[in-house]
């Protein structure tokens, strides 16, 4: 078991009335899992990812990784956890404009102490995601699909146990989406867990575990329950 989530709840106040953005979520993640979560806007998907990434503290429940509850982490520990154990791909364009593609990929390597040759590793990752030739360019010279590949390479630089991706194909065309999902499949085949949130039903079915989130409640869809896929179309959750 890589990650264990038990009774995870995150409550907010809206107009003085409490509501659960994430409600009693239970989830186990094992190495090689490719988990796709879909759901309506505001269903709590991104909140769940941010809780798992340690960017938010839960109201109750726990997220346990390597025997430690992440809610007990101080800032240094939470940052180290985000930097080393998970590779987070935020929603939208998240590549830093001031750095070259290569330096964007290398950046997480230097936020904490890591052994090895960051340059060789970054070039190898850029090769794997098919944009090695863009290594010395700046983000403004890249297309949306190329920028997403940079984010994926960057998420992999510290050999994390798990990749978390928030709407990684949200603004991409179908062909580019397919290429990105192929990359995630490759990553999970190498034994890394992938946790992906998407509105795109085609993308959502690329994983080996499929969840729907509704009003903060996470439900796994198994076998024939994994319906809702529309041939050639974007999903119903928009």
């Amino acid at each position, binding site marked *: 078991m890589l990650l264990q989530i038990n009774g995870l709840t995150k409550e907010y106040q809206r107009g003085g009335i409490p509501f659960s953005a994430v409600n009693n979520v239970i989830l186990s993640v094992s190495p090689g899992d490719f988990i796709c979560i879909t759901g309506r806007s505001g269903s709590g998907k991104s909140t769940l990812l941010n809780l798992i990434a340690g960017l*938010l503290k839960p109201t109750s429940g726990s997220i346990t990784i390597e025997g430690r509850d992440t809610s007990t982490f101080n800032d240094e520990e939470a*940052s180290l956890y985000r930097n080393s154990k998970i590779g987070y791909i935020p929603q939208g364009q998240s590549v830093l*404009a001031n*750095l070259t593609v290569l330096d964007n990929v290398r*950046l997480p390597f230097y*936020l904490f102490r890591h052994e090895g040759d960051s340059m060789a590793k970054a070039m190898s990752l850029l090769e794997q995601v098919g944009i090695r030739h863009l290594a010395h360019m700046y983000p403004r010279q890249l297309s949306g699909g190329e920028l997403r590949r940079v984010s994926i390479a960057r998420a992999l630089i510290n050999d994390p146990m798990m990749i978390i991706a928030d709407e990684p194909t949200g603004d991409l065309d179908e062909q580019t989406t397919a290429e990105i999902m192929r990359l995630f499949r490759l990553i999970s085949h190498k034994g890394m867990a992938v946790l992906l949130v998407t509105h795109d039903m085609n993308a959502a079915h690329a994983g080996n575990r499929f969840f729907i989130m509704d009003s903060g409640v996470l439900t796994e869809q198994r076998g024939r329950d994994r319906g809702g896929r529309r041939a050639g179309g974007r999903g119903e959750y928009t």
Partner: protein
Amino acid sequence: MKQTPLTSRQLSFYNLRRRPFRTFCLILVVAVLAFTLFGGSILTISLRNGMSSLQQRLGADLMVVPKGYEADMTGVLLRGEPSYFYFSDAVVQQIAEIKGVSQVTPQFFLTSLSASCCSTQVQLIGFDPETDFVIQPWIAKTYGIEIQDGCFIAGGDIILESDQTLRFFNQTYPVAAQLEKTATGLDSSVFMSMDTIQSLFTSARESGMNFIYDEEPKEAVSSVLVRINKDLNADTVASNIRAGIPNVDVIVSKNMISGISGNLSSLVDYIRVLSIVLWIFAAVILLVIFSATINERKKEFAVIRILGATRRRLAVIVLTESLYLSVAGGVVGVAAASLVVFPFSAYIGERLQLPYLEPEIGAVLGVLALSLLLSFLVGPLASIYSAVKISKAETYLTMREGE
């Protein structure tokens, strides 16, 4: 391939490099501040030094000159404008007998026509070694020697011949000592005993240059320096002299100095206020720009945080950026000020019409260190708010804002 570690310093440098115009403007703000701090401080200290030097060098409470030559005398003393004027040496005894006068000593002025030492005329000043209480103590204090007949003492700006001599009116004399700079007109003067200057006078007359028509040179003096009894007021004694001796002007040293001091104080106050206002102005500009920039860059910092940066790391990146700007601006500003205040010191003193004496290297280095320190501090101080704000920002909310 060269592998540059992406440290906080490197990240800050890249951030500044990719925004050249903003970086240039911020450096310029700090540079103007550093220019004012360093240039203003050197200017202030130089003027104070000049004032202090003038007070020390005047050495007399009153200076008596022929009627109508007060401006010429102050020109000789303050600005090194050579002049000559004479009245009978009988006035020396008359002044000595005035109530309240304790010491008197005459001086005799000549001006050179041209000399190898100088591109302009030189003020030649003869003094009476037996009664002098101004020049000799100065020489004795600095060099521990007494001036002899047949030698010169050169002011600080006089350039000597290679054999340490000076030549005026076809007469060459050795230079016994050269005085340190005083920022007064005395820097471009050459001092000698009365006998020596009379010898020069004779030589000048033989060359067809006559300074005096209605007096015998041995019976003429240019000015009489006066010391008064300590318990008396200089203005009162000056009035006594004016009342008792016709056709003389009396310059009261402290009035001359206080007049200059008044101008100096105003200028020093102005520079001080300007420096404080500019420091605050620079801090406010940087505060506003950093704050606005940080708001623009919230998502950038949120991404870095998501990648694993601690809150402290974000603050360090912001503070390092501001420190780089401050260091660059500080160095540029101080360098620019140095290029103005040091090569043009003579011109500045002349334009201000005030004695101007540059501080010694130790004081310059002290001012340099303080100016750089204040310049280096302004950026980080102004960016503390932004650094704290960005380090406390909720990454989750920031990323949602950007959606």
